[in-house]
């Protein structure tokens, strides 16, 4: 669909690079700031140093928050894999009509603003037999609902692409039990969708702030809550934190992509 390959190509490329530059600028600024000794009255920083990173990565409170974020996210994702995979399987294999209902249900966590649902959750789980507010458990449960739509949609697309019913039927006629068919034939073919869903949910959850702050706050500090609590400390230190966080998600995405590519 290129009308003028020569002139158009140059123009399109310029737009893309410009967009890329605009998106990259704040990140580059943050990176530079995190590496600067001091940067206040001059156009460029007065010197470069890694001391902010050293300070950050030797700060026990940061390491704890990082670990806790990781734990909550991984916990929530494990829970969603364990619950959603069988659910998807049942919906698509046995009750395809329920898919329409599920599509409405999975949007609910997004329909209610986080602040509103936080208040509801605080009411529900603040006291009584299921008092969980202030513990990581409520975050894991809450994050599960956020991951649900990502997981459900991505894996549904994958399921529709593999012709689930025929694969299951073929496996069963060849002597596989339902479990064997699901584990040996269906699951390996969902790897791609599952990977995409997990990555998407992970990067979203790893950066989640509202629920973490309102439901748990400093009692089980996650990375974003820690960042918020540090807002009055050195900007260089905070920049190092943001860049570290960003680099972590980037590396994770890259590794996951590599793993995904090699195996087909």
């Amino acid at each position, binding site marked *: 669909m290129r009308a003028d390959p020569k002139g158009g190509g140059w123009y399109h490329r310029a737009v893309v690079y410009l967009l890329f530059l605009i998106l990259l600028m704040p990140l580059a600024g943050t990176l530079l700031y995190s590496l600067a000794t001091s940067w206040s009255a001059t156009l460029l920083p007065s010197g470069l140093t890694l001391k902010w990173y050293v300070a950050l990565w030797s700060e026990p409170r940061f390491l704890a928050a990082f670990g806790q974020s990781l734990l909550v996210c991984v916990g929530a994702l494990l829970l969603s894999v364990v619950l959603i995979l069988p659910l998807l399987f049942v919906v698509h294999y046995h009750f395809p009509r329920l898919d329409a209902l599920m599509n409405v249900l999975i949007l609910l966590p997004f329909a209610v603003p986080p602040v509103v649902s936080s208040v509801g959750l605080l009411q529900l789980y603040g006291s009584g037999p299921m008092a969980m507010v202030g513990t990581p458990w409520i975050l894991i449960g809450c994050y599960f609902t956020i991951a649900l739509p990502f997981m459900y949609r991505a894996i549904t697309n994958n399921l529709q692409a593999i012709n689930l019913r*025929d694969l299951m*039927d*073929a*496996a069963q*006629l*060849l*002597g596989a039990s339902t479990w064997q068919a699901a584990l040996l*034939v269906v699951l*390996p073919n969902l*790897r791609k969708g599952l990977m995409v869903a997990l990555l998407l949910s992970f990067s979203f959850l790893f950066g989640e702030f509202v629920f973490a702050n309102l439901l748990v706050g400093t009692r089980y500090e996650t990375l974003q809550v820690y960042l918020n609590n540090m807002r009055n400390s050195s900007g260089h230190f905070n920049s190092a934190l943001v860049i570290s966080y960003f680099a972590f998600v980037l590396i994770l995405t890259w590794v996951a992509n590599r793993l995904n590519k090699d195996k087909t």
Partner: protein
Amino acid sequence: MSYVSVRNLQKSYAGSPVFSQIDCQIERGEFITLLGPSGCGKSTLLRCIAGLTPVDSGQILLDGIDIVPQSPQKRGIGMVFQSYALFPNMTVEQNVAFGLRMQKVRGDESQARVREALQLVELNDFAARYPHQLSGGQCQRVALARSLVTRPRLLLLDEPLSALDARIRKHLREQIRAIQRELGLTTIFVTHDQEEALTLSDRIFLMNQGRIVQSGDAETLYTAPVDLFAAGFIGNYNLLDADSASRLLQRPVTGRLAIRPESITLGLHGELDAQVRSHSLLGNVIRYRVQVREVELVVDVLNRSPADLHADGQRVSVSIDPSALREVA
């Protein structure tokens, strides 16, 4: 007693019957085709025999034993699907070996049998490939090998050729028939394509609206359709209502009349005056639409020489072989 015997089989979805009172007998080693338009219940019948769809009532006897209560895993039935249903995460070899793996067949024996099955479909060189690296025809041959390797007691083919292009379809259908003959495998083939049914089958069960309308060999079905549906579905019969038929034959006819297009001869010195309305060249056959006594007839003429070609509007004459006339209900 027959090898496969279906007795009074009944199936309905949400209150409306898919088929009812299906009765049929299949002998050992026979190649049977279930032929019918889409929605006639033929695929559902096949899935019921495989055990993939539960039946409401009735019996399916395989070698004298009712298999209705058995799970699909226990029935020893192989099946090939229209969508191939190859496992995308496994190589050709692993796909074919899957059934043996489930039966816990020893490694070396399994390997030998996989090789033998791939040999049968001429795909030995493709053992290490993945399904996405194969063409549609190759995929279906792998699927065939996969269902044969477990030595099924009955082979079911659910429109296995429908997703393939014409040339491959023809080749594969001959290959399927040759393998079936070689192994003496009792086979049920489902299709909506009359040509496939006529060329492949020992016997054809013609189905419509959940009933077996007619069964018999290709010859019988083609030359002696039992009713209007059978005549309309197989061949390109001229179907005339009583009025037109009476006018054409100049004698009273009560029912509907079916005349095969190739049983009418077209020439210059025949019995009935006619005029060519239009013609189309189908290759070895020329299909004419001619007007005879205000009745339009389709006439197929073998395209042997330029003398067989008649221009539109030309006056010709036709002769109708009286023994080829069939009155149908």
